[in-house]
């Protein structure tokens, strides 16, 4: 096999200057990408008196976090968001894994029709069904409750996740399932004991994405909840209008809202990249 050299980046320059340029460019890109988050964190650590001149002064404090955590509504919003995201993830996976499996393993009119339905509903803008969803949820008496926010969240994930799940199952050889069925497994047994375990990396990736999407979701929560079930995104958006001047407290809340997402993503990054590679 012949030796292959990669085409050089900026050919013609001496090696060290090319390397320096590359390193500088990388640092700049990373800085530009992380800057908004860094700035937010810095703001959240400044005392009230120093917040308007974040770039000046050296006083730092954790008081903002303490003050935010002493507000009952915000703590409640965090708990609500966490509970709803977790429940929505579990139920979404239950529903979409089986629907994706069906799309992948069966062909025929039923499967084609279901795929068409999913694609069309994926295209429908949220706003077109969230507006009337408000009436539906209200007439069923579940407006501003956990259930009333949870069920639409599960419904909204069906289309995209079934689509992704189909792709994952397409990448898994079905012959193991056939073998299990010949050995006396029922179809359900083959699905639950053979197909699901081999799709586990993909399912974990989906779980991470689902949790993040629900945690970050705004429009549904804005329309479908009132005062009884505050969730964190809505509470933060209200901050902007009601407490426009307390930037330090807002930054502290935002940093805390970022934290679980960071942890989940850090822990789940491996699964997401593996899972999406199929």
């Amino acid at each position: 096999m012949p030796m292959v050299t990669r085409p050089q980046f900026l050919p013609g320059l001496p090696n060290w200057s090319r390397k320096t340029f590359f390193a500088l460019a990388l640092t700049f890109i990373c800085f530009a990408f992380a800057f908004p988050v860094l700035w937010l964190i810095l703001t959240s650590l400044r005392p009230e008196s120093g917040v308007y001149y974040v770039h000046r002064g050296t006083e730092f404090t954790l008081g903002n976090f303490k003050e935010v955590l002493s507000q009952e509504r915000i703590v409640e919003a965090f708990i609500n968001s966490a509970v709803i995201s977790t429940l929505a993830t579990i139920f979404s996976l239950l529903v979409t894994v089986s629907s994706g499996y069906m799309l992948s393993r069966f062909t025929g009119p039923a499967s084609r029709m279901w795929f068409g339905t999913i694609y069309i509903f994926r295209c429908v803008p949220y706003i077109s069904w969230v507006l009337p969803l408000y009436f539906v949820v209200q007439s069923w008496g579940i407006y501003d409750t956990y259930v009333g926010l949870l069920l639409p969240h599960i419904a909204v994930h069906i289309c995209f996740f079934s689509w992704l799940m189909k792709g994952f199952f397409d990448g898994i050889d079905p012959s193991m399932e056939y073998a299990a069925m010949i050995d006396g497994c029922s179809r359900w047994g083959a699905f639950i004991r053979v197909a699901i375990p081999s799709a586990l990396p993909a399912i974990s990736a989906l779980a991470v994405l689902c949790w993040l999407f629900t945690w970050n979701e705004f429009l549904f929560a804005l329309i479908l909840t009132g005062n009884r079930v505050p969730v964190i995104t809505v509470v933060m958006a209200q901050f902007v209008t009601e407490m426009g001047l307390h930037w330090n407290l807002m930054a502290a809340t935002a940093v805390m809202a970022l934290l679980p997402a960071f942890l989940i993503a850090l822990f789940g990054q491996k699964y997401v990249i593996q899972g999406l590679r199929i």
Partner: protein
Amino acid sequence: MFGEQQRFVLLLIAPAALLMLLFQVVPIVIGANASFRDWALYNPKKTWVGLDHYHAVISDPAFLYVVLPNTFIFMVVSVAGALVTGLALALLLNRPFPGQKLVQTILLVPLMVAPVVAAIMIRWIFNDQFGIANVVLEAIGLEGQPWLVQRWSAFCIILLTDIWLWTPWFTLLLLSGLQSLPKEPFEAAAIDGTSTWRVFRYLTLPMLRPVIVVCVVIRAIDAFRTFDIVWTLTGGGPGRSTELFSLYAYVLAFLNLDLGRGSAAAIIGGLIILVLGVAMYRLVDRIAKA
């Protein structure tokens, strides 16, 4: 009534289908019904008005000359911007260099940031009195700008925020795509001494095309219905100059409390994106088969 296999198939999709029926189909039907009626709070009879709301929306100059162009400009620029930066970063991350893992983690950060949080950060950075953007501008002798109260600067900031938020999504999917490409054509090109640009233009790009097209289609549909960052950044202002279609429908229904007209606007937008979506699906199908 059904064979064993049909029962299995139906049971697999039954929960998903039931949820979609209750929380998507039923609301859409109710919305369609509302769009033909005078569904305002002061009119309990909900009189049938036919296509009046549709006519009102389509002949509303704000919708025709501000909201629709905004939505399309937003969709095109946001998708194109995130695609170009995402592709560039994916190419960068695809070559080994020290610290590659760290850089990759940093570049994926915006993926975890809620759009609402991102909008709050950007609002603070571009605050006209205390934002760091103006501080930097003044430090180098330029005049600070009231960024979010001028139409085009506000629109550019919305676009930049959206591109920042969605670039990692493209990077992630394109990087997976790049890493699954076969190695041989690239080795052959290297032996022939092909320039970097030509390798990109005639090898990487055509081979990556299916992945790019799928990303663009999914993202374009989502960009069309963007709501949260615009709502939190400018609320559609100054005036109504940065309103996108989702905000237009929301304002009609929940601030003007005219649910009939709001639903009509939402359905018009839905139809536009449905036509676009089906057309794009055809395109993907053709490219995937070619």
